[in-house]
């Protein structure tokens, strides 16, 4: 026997906006249609129709369908917001994420999501466990859901709608759908018929007309409808009537139409005002990143980068990419990196809408080794790398790689990924380096090389002077010539010397030799100090 769960977000446009702007919680919030908006195209006009009303506004007598002017007459301190399709889209995706984290077979239906929960009792122990998991995970990403479970999708949807009002999950026992539905009034079918209408399964006016007809016949509850002979209901009320009878009798068995959870994790918000300061924008971004990270965490994923889309007040659009050194779930670090990305290339106009798309990536796996010292945990290391990159710049954090050519000053920095590196090395034949048996005098590099004045006597270096150092040459060795990259636009032709100065320091000097098209003449530089 099939089992279904349904999670419903009550007052969906309001909930979606509160998720994007949590500071509005507790305010008498109303959502208006975009039509009738005033001059700037974002603020709602007086003739806009209300399409969503918060619980606080409802207590003040405000109802959906009113105009803004009518609502403001009832209460002048309402918080008006236009319907934010971006926030609604993000909330819908988040709802699918939650459902996808509980069951692999899910179906989206507007402000509700259906789950096939057959066999899930092995994971969640009971329907109550599934309902609790859905509620908890929804809370974590800023949504409040009502959850119902039953033997059919429609019964589960009705149960979830009622649960959203009471705040407690409703679990209809297996095979008891008809019994549970019987005492409920016919009006509980309204959301079910609305969903069907949205899918254009039945004509637009069918449900109000049918409801009126049922009431004229003295039918008040679903049990009254279920007791009628189905054949008679079909001949009198047609296909729509038969469907309603099947629902009331607990015989409805429409299958789940499975769909995949979104592969892309997007959060966004449209602003009713223009944001000009970076701080205000980052405040918004932090909220978006926080919600993205929670959604990724539901799937056991981390963030491998961000794409930030900015809608500009001049009608343009700007996009910035935020790269990370390793997949991370650190909101603070991602916010800092986003700041750097936007600061590096500020948008040309004020911002009226923000969208953030997370590039999902798997956290780095690890397998501890019994015979090796424990290194940093991959998750913590990933976060550390991101934070260090935010602090110092991503090109200044990583694994050093010695020069491959003959230019002594050349080096590269690659990503520090010891886990992958060890794995590759364990398969390959590259030998482990061995510590030098004798000590080697290391070079402290001067980057960039420091220009020096060198005075020579009889062809030998006699005196060296440079910024911050200088002295008589006590001993010097060299020259050792390097000629490389003669085939490139930047040929390297140098004479290197080791010089011990009277100040006690031993330096590596080089003379850039002239010659070739890119000749700079003979110039002396100090590029390091032996220490």
């Amino acid at each position, binding site marked *: 026997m099939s089992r279904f769960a349904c999670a419903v977000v009550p007052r969906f446009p309001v909930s979606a906006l509160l998720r994007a702007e949590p500071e509005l919680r507790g305010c008498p919030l109303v959502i208006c249609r975009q039509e009738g908006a005033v001059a700037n195209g974002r603020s709602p006009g007086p003739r806009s129709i209300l399409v969503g009303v918060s619980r606080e506004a409802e207590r003040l007598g405000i109802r959906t369908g009113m105009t803004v002017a009518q609502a403001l007459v009832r209460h002048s301190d309402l918080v008006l917001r236009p319907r934010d399709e971006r926030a609604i889209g993000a909330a819908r995706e988040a709802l699918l994420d939650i459902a996808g984290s509980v069951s692999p077979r899910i179906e989206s239906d507007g402000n509700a999501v259906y789950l096939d929960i057959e066999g899930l009792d092995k994971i969640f122990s009971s329907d109550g466990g599934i309902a609790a998991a859905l509620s908890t995970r929804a809370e974590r990403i800023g949504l409040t859901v009502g959850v119902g479970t039953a033997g059919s999708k429609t019964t589960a949807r009705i149960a979830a709608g009622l649960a959203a009002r009471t705040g407690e999950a409703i679990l209809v026992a297996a095979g008891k759908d008809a019994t549970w539905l019987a005492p409920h009034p016919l009006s509980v079918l309204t959301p079910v018929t609305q969903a069907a209408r949205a899918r254009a399964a039945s004509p637009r006016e069918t449900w109000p007309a049918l409801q009126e007809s049922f009431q004229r016949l003295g039918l008040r509850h679903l049990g009254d409808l279920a007791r009628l002979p189905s054949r008679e209901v079909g001949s009198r009320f047609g296909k729509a009537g038969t469907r309603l009878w099947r629902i009331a009798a607990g015989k409805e068995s429409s299958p789940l139409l499975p769909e995949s959870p979104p592969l892309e994790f997007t959060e966004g918000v449209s602003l009713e005002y223009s944001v000009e300061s970076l701080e205000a924008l980052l405040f918004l971004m932090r909220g978006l990143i926080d919600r993205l990270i929670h959604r990724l965490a539901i799937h056991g994923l981390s963030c491998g980068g961000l794409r930030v889309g900015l809608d500009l007040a001049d009608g343009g659009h700007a996009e910035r990419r935020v790269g990370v050194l390793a997949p991370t779930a650190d909101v603070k670090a991602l916010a800092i990196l986003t700041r750097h990305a936007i600061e590096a290339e500020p948008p040309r106009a004020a911002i009226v809408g923000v969208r953030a798309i997370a590039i999902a990536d798997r956290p780095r796996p690890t397998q501890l080794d019994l015979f090796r010292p424990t290194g940093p945990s991959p998750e913590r290391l990933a976060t550390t790398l991101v934070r260090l990159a935010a602090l110092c710049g991503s090109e200044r954090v990583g694994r050093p790689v*010695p020069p491959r050519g003959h230019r002594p000053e050349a080096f590269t920095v690659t990503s520090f990924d010891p886990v992958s590196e060890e794995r590759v090395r364990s398969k390959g034949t590259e030998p482990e380096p061995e510590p030098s048996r004798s000590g080697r005098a290391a070079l402290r590099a001067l980057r960039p090389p420091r220009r020096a004045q060198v005075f020579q006597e009889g062809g030998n270096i006699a005196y060296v002077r440079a910024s*911050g150092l200088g002295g008589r040459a006590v001993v010097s060795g060299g020259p050792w010539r390097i000629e490389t990259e003669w085939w490139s636009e930047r040929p390297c032709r140098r004479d290197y010397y080791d010089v011990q100065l009277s100040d006690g320091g031993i330096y590596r000097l080089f003379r850039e030799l002239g010659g070739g098209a890119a000749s700079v003449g003979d110039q002396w530089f100090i590029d390091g100090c032996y220490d």
Partner: protein
Amino acid sequence: MQGASQLRVEDLLSQLPGTLRRGHVPEAPEWEGEGGRLSTGYSEIDDLLGGGVPRGRLSEVVGRGSVGTTSLAQRLLASVTTDENFAAWIDVADAFDPASASAAGVALHRLLWVRPPDLVAAFAATEILLATGGFALVFLDTGPVRGALGPKTRQGRPRPRGQAAGGQKGRRMLAAPQTWLRLARAAEQSRTALVVLPGAGSAKEGCLGLAGSAAGVRLELSPVQAVWEGTPGAPLLLEGLVSRIDVTRNRGPQARRQRSRQMRIRLD
């Protein structure tokens, strides 16, 4: 009845060995941290330090330029990374030379190189790395700290006036004892050997250390001579550096009496 019990307890107490009697506070063995000490790669220096650089402590290697502090640090790094441990090098001066490190035998794939733009970022990066854990060794190369000495400390020791990059805030942090105490505590918690290299401003100027009493170990290097070799008519070769090492601070149970040794660093 109560009096008899009291007598019995006193009788039993008197039979306890001396170390367990009332009023005696047993001395706790000093914790050396998991993994104990990290070998420097020079057996003589390990011997001086009682096994090597201690994990979970802040150590300092100080000396003027061209005295071998970087060579000693890279040898320690090579020893640690080839033992399959991870290490990090925080390089404010951007002076780390991968070619030298590779030649010294450092397993560079186990080394995280961080080049912070200033001292403030360097201290933050050090704290981040210590909090991450899993690194056996973290170097903090503060870059040039000129030897021009500031006001003396209470103990009469001259304190270097920080002149490294990082502006006023960085200089204040460099001279503040609480900075080093905090880092020492973080190193202890993560069981990481934190080694500070207060780079000299120039070869002429020395540095007496920055961490003060927060340092568990302080090695001071002073030059003996640079060894040049060559035959008449041919260019001279820098053969190596010979330096004297003094252990001016070594807190721990395994500290040795002998406090100084000459080290020869060869340049092949």
